[in-house]
């Protein structure tokens, strides 16, 4: 611990006082009950072990679909604007499908059960979101790299066109996880999907929305979306922590 350069700053310690202190420490050690706290990585590996085969099939399926879509959109004679709309719809779909892992944690009294069993719901939700985020990023990366350049909008603008509907659909989805925990819970996934789809297609109905002069609007929508998404995640964690939505009985 010490540098070894100078030892003159060390003076004699009162051995009696030191031993008294060490005895107190020894007492605390005897009373101590060591608990096992797994690291975040250990939790992640554990969660991955318990994912169902349908989860992996679904994630793999989304990636394969993304590749098929890229192949189809890269065929000669494709329409740039249509390609953006299709890809943004696909991104929204991927976001919803990937977040279904989070949705499962909140479905049909599952959250209550998990909380009652003293499972760390916050950690479980974080890990599910991390997994969903990784697949989303992979799909987004593939679409931007392979379709971004050919759309005529430029890679940066293309990224924004993909990101905005994706961000807002995720916000909507996460909000519904806690907002629709009543009688409408059965329709939650469906309603989130439909609303997100409308959100993604909406720019098609606004004339010249994919033109460069509106890029600033897309930028603002993306920045606000990131902010709202962070707030929504905080709200979700707050609900889990506070338990005002989850009925603990």
């Amino acid at each position, binding site marked *: *611990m010490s540098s070894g350069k100078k030892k003159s700053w060390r003076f004699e310690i009162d051995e009696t006082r030191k031993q008294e202190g060490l005895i107190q420490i020894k007492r605390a050690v005897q009373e101590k009950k*060591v608990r096992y706290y797994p690291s975040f990585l250990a939790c992640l590996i554990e969660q991955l072990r318990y994912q169902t085969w349908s989860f992996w099939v679904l994630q793999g399926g989304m990636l394969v679909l993304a590749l098929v879509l890229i192949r189809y959109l890269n065929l000669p004679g494709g329409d740039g604007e249509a390609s953006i709309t299709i890809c943004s719809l696909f991104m929204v779909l991927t976001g919803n499908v990937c977040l279904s892992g989070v949705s499962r944690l909140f479905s049909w009294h599952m959250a209550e059960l998990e909380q009652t069993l003293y499972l760390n719901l916050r950690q479980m939700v974080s890990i599910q979101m991390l997994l969903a985020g990784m697949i989303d990023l992979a799909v987004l990366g593939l679409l931007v790299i392979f379709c971004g350049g050919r759309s005529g909008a430029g890679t940066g603008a293309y990224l924004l066109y993909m990101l905005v509907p994706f961000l807002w659909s995720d916000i909507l989805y996460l909000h519904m996880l806690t907002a629709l925990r009543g009688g409408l819970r059965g329709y939650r996934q469906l309603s989130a999907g439909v609303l997100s789809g409308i959100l993604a297609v909406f720019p098609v109905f606004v004339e010249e929305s994919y033109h460069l002069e509106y890029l600033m609007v897309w930028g603002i929508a993306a920045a606000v979306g990131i902010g709202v998404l962070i707030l929504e995640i905080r709200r979700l964690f707050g609900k889990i922590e506070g338990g005002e939505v989850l009925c603990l009985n």
Partner: protein
Amino acid sequence: MDDKELVRLVQSGQKEYLNEIAGKYYDDIYYFCTYQTGSREDAYDLTQETFLRFIRYVDSYRYRNLPGYLLTIAMNLCRSYFHESGRTRLEFEYREGDRSKDNHKENRDGSVQMEGLEESQVLAEALMQLPDMQREAVLLHHFYGYKNREIARMTGASYAAVKSRINQGIDKLKDLLDKEDFYE
């Protein structure tokens, strides 16, 4: 046995190794608390409290740098020591009989030992003149051998702030001690 292995054994349930950790780092933590608070008596309590807190939180501790972690606990305790007790540090507190004990050491062990003890007293009094943050940084860097980046992580200050605190602290110490080659 290295620190990583000690922590691993403790976290696997062999809590008796906590005593080994306390024995290994007791002196280092004690000296730090003494120089930070200026009170040799209160430093014993603060050192004990440092290890009690470590014992309380050892389950969730992720090994990185054990002495650094212990010093960070001690540093926070020393900060709240002044904040909560409302005490102000004026000078290094010597216990009754220290001087006679030192003289006794001199007669028994020779003059070199006595010089060392006197040097520690002069140094301690000079350190007491430094602002808290500067003293903290100087202690960790020059006495405990931590790099600026490590101190920044431990104290939560920026790298530039730590560097500046160390430089300013050393300049002040040199002025106070009037020994240009003290740390050379």
